[in-house]
């Protein structure tokens, strides 16, 4: 074949082979992807070796030109193929190298500081969450309260022996730090006086104050109180709600029992116990071996309370219940000294 080629064509053909050979050798000597790209420019670029040859094709006869063009094109494609191959191999090698890297995975991760909710607030929010699901609106009231709203309106007129049950802080002769969240009941109900059969379902959380200070009593503590008023509210419904509440706050298997008690603003009045969440009723140190823990007070709103706020107690009834948030938090987390909650020791708080 080569002998049949005219001498000029043969010359071009040789040049092409030399260029191809050089390109392949250069490619093999390449160390980096950048060098490969430089070779692409050097051989295939506008000013590259192949372009030089192609520019020289003009001097060929018109018969030879197509053949030379075809040959040049073949060489171009071959060089391109080699470049591609080389690039591919180098990328793979790089990836291999990259995958060889290893670090000490046991060094600690970088963390942003993590915050923690206070267990009392957390517990209070949980209780309110349960009550909201049951249709209760959250209403708050002032902590500095009038003696009348804290006591008298709740069926504890001055001198009533039940006032001694709650040792009170006074700011003046008739202004106190509220001893319970129950004045909120009065504030809400008295806004509805003269209403025919009012319907109310509220939960009121907040701080309350009593002159007590020991391992299980703090002079400042938190309560959540619930009030449900309407024409057909029953004690059986109160029981149903509280059972649900206890199960949501502790475990689904929590059992509940009710004991008779006395609060001036409810009648009948009961204390509600739950089966010990620690030992589920088998008796342990948390429940002092009884299997039960006192959780809250509850009862049907005393007719005298309705009468005080101007609501007809014949057509309206209701129930109320209240619990100490600290108490619930102590039971849930196995805390035995209430003062720990108020120490605000970060080492303690970080556990919540």
């Amino acid at each position, binding site marked *: 074949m080569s002998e049949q080629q005219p001498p000029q064509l043969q010359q071009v053909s040789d040049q092409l082979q030399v260029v191809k050979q050089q390109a392949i050798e250069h490619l093999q000597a390449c160390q980096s992807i950048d060098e490969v790209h430089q070779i692409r420019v050097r051989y295939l670029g506008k000013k590259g070796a192949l372009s030089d040859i192609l520019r020289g094709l003009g001097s060929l006869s018109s018969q030879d030109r197509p053949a030379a063009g075809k040959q040049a094109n073949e060489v171009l494609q071959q060089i391109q193929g080699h470049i591609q191959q080389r690039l591919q191999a180098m990328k793979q090698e790089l990836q291999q190298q990259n995958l060889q890297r290893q670090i000490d995975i046991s060094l600690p991760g970088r963390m942003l500081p993590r915050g923690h909710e206070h267990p009392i607030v957390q517990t209070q929010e949980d209780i309110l969450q349960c009550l909201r699901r049951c249709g209760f609106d959250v209403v708050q009231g002032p902590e500095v309260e009038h003696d009348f709203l804290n006591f008298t309106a709740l069926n504890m007129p001055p001198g009533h022996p039940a006032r001694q049950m709650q040792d009170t802080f006074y700011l003046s002769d008739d202004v106190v730090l509220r001893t319970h969240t129950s004045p909120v009941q009065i504030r809400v109900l*008295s806004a509805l006086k003269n209403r025919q059969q009012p319907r109310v379902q509220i939960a009121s959380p907040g701080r309350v104050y009593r002159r007590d200070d020991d391992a299980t009593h703090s002079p400042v503590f938190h309560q959540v109180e619930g009030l449900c008023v309407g024409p057909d509210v029953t004690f059986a419904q109160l029981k149903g709600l509280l059972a649900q509440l206890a199960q949501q706050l502790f475990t689904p298997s929590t059992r509940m029992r009710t004991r008779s008690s006395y609060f001036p603003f409810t*009648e009948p009045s009961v204390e509600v116990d739950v089966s010990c969440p620690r030992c589920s009723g088998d008796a342990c140190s948390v429940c002092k071996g009884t299997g039960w823990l006192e959780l809250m007070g509850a009862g049907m709103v005393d007719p005298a309370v309705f009468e005080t706020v101007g609501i007809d107690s014949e057509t309206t009834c209701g129930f109320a219940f209240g619990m100490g948030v600290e108490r619930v938090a102590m039971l849930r987390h196995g805390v035995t000294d209430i003062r720990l909650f108020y120490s605000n020791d970060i080492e303690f708080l970080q556990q919540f």
Partner: protein
Amino acid sequence: MRVSLKTLRRLVALPKSMIEEQIAQRLSVAGFETTIEQGMWADLDHVLLAKVAQLQEIPDHPKLQQCQLQLGKQHVQVVSAASNIKPGDLVAYVAPNTQLPSGQQIDTKTVGGVSSAGMLCSAADLGLCDSSQGVLLVAPQDVDTTLLGSPLGRTAGLLDTVFDIDVTPNRPDALGHVGIARELSACLQVPMLSNTPRCQEIQASIDTAVHVSVQQREHCPRFACRVIQDIVVQQSPLWLQTLLTDCGVRSINNVVDITNWVMLHRGHPLHAYDASCLSQDRQRAQLVVRMAQANETLQLLDNASLELSTEDLVVADAQQPLGLAGIMGGKASGISATTQSVVLEAAYFNPNTIRRMVQRHRLNTQASHRMERGCDPSVLPLVLDEAAHLLTQLANGRVLKGMMDLYPSKIQRAVISFRPSRFYQLSGIGKQQTDEPTILRLLGGLGVETIGRRGDAICFSAPTFRPDLTREVDLIEELMRLIGYDHVPTAPLVSYLQSESPTQHNPNLLSHYVRRCLVGQGFCEAVHSSLGSASQHDPFCHAAAATPLQLQNPLGEETKALRYSLLPALLDTTSQNLKRGIASPRLFEVGVGFASCEHTPLPPGSMPQPHHRWAQETTWAAAIMAGRATPQTFDRHSHPVDFYDIKGVITHILASLGLWQGWQEQAILFRPLPPQFAQLFHPGLAAALYHHSDSGDTQVGLFGQFHPQICEDYDLKKEIYGFELNLTALQPHAHASQHFVSPPNRYPTMQRDLAVVVPESVTAQQIVDLLQQHNQPNQWVQDIRFFDLYRGPNIAQNHKSLGLSICLRAPNRTLTDEEAATFMTTFITKLQETLKASVRS
């Protein structure tokens, strides 16, 4: 109230099979929280019954006797100083190597040259009374004398179980053994056992011995007394001393012990006067129930002297007050060792009268505790008979015939109309569970009698010992109590979706967002007491020009003041935590602070309205941070917390409340610290936050570095940063959950960086303000970010270089490079003109 189980079993037919735990449990469920305790003799098994066999004098020791004791087959020898023993007496003996209840160790020792193994006990040694003369003598009829040497408590049948019962204030009837027995009878449906006392009277009539007049009938509806003569005041027998001790009352002498015991037994207080100490009129002792006169004084049994007022009710003789009615007797007419004749008083005083006196004199006694809650006016003859009977038995007394009983208008049983339908409705109990005959039977067990019917209602009458039963709902409660609340069915609650609860801003929700935001930024939530010392809280309150609030009756100086700000307690806690080794504490609290506020006093008799407030209560969010801004890691360093870290925290909060619009014009403004807070914060490294509105700017917070003096006061060695935000003030402006948003803009953004050199006095805000102005026509600026602040070489003196990055984007198309370039050039020109800025290349 401490109750002897042995006595209870004598009063009510408790099933033999019922153990003490079950009885206590039943009482607890019925509303009488009961703890089981053991009587005093449970721990005294080492006190043995012994008989004095022989007594011998000890030479040179006239006060001592050598005493041979018989303990079953065994004999022991002790030396005793007691003068009240003779051969044949039964005594209480403790062997060596034991302890008395007082903790005194008993050993074998030599007294007066004679070996003494153990000791003879007095009543005081055993804790039966405070002081006693001679050793305790055991009456032969009280013990089995064949059991010498065995534990005295067992032989004499003194072992008992004690119920410590929490009696709620509405149940004065349960402040005696009989009342508790009645409860058990009703709950367990078992009969009461008869216990009506009979006292033997002598011929002579009481009319010859005493004259009583009651001047104030409204205060003293019933007054009764008996007279007992020829009594011998001495120590009570062992069984009575034991009963009283088990019930928590000290034994004094037989007369006083009897009045105390009858009170504990029947629940009604009694008082015994020494008849010889009363003024006489024709040989009759005089008693008057009257109001005290001004300036009268009374020396009480406990020696305290009481100034009486004209509102005090007293029992007096013709000359002087003898006692504060229903509360405490006076010294002058008290029982003494020489008393021979007593006037025994049982009276029913108006509970309100007693209550007022108790409050006025701050005197709480066993008697007043019962009297102010309401005793049973019908029981007076019974308690007098019981006490008189015991005085004949235990003090050789002779009871004069008859009883003075001034009871002009009888206190009637309360009549209550009861609708079974109301009971079923309120309780949720069904008719088939508790039918009408059951209702009658259950109430009957409590002494509630059926009188008749009126339409649907049944008329009941309540016994006088239950002053708490006056209304239908009281009977409903009694029924549910007897049925047992655990037997009331459970029903689902039908929620009122249209509850008429007051619609109001929910401050709880705002707090919730702030708390969530701070926890997300690494802060631990703290909860502090609202009470602290005035010295701690006052500076923060005064700086804010507020008036602090203080308690009238604090527990101590340290908890006297109501907090105004949450920062003092947080500073204290931060200091504690730093000392415990927490290097970078971050703490916050959301809570209420207090200050005094103007309030008009309520007209007497009017009711406070729901909007009335007696203090200014502000909800604050406050936080403190110190140490490093981010945790140090193995390969990165972290800078110490500074002003811009705390500002960043606040900005986050504002954003979460919808109060932060990025670089744009703000509703919240940062301004230099007002001078009145310069004692609390570093004046140059702190700032105040204001809410801007057309009606004026309101201060809503403070933040920055605490004043070095404050840090020193709280023993804080580091630089401490903190803030407080007034959530109450922010409340109306925050819209944390409800605001409108725009869809994301898909056109490309362009970022143009710029370094400008400006005089030190130019603030970043001035540059931002200028950019806002420049942005007005086109609204291309998306954001501006300061990425560099530089002072030093190449920057002129008193100048600084600020690097800022401006992000541009048109709302509805792609901006061209030329448009961006023009925007920047004109902005730079404005910077040069307005702020004397120059651009660094």
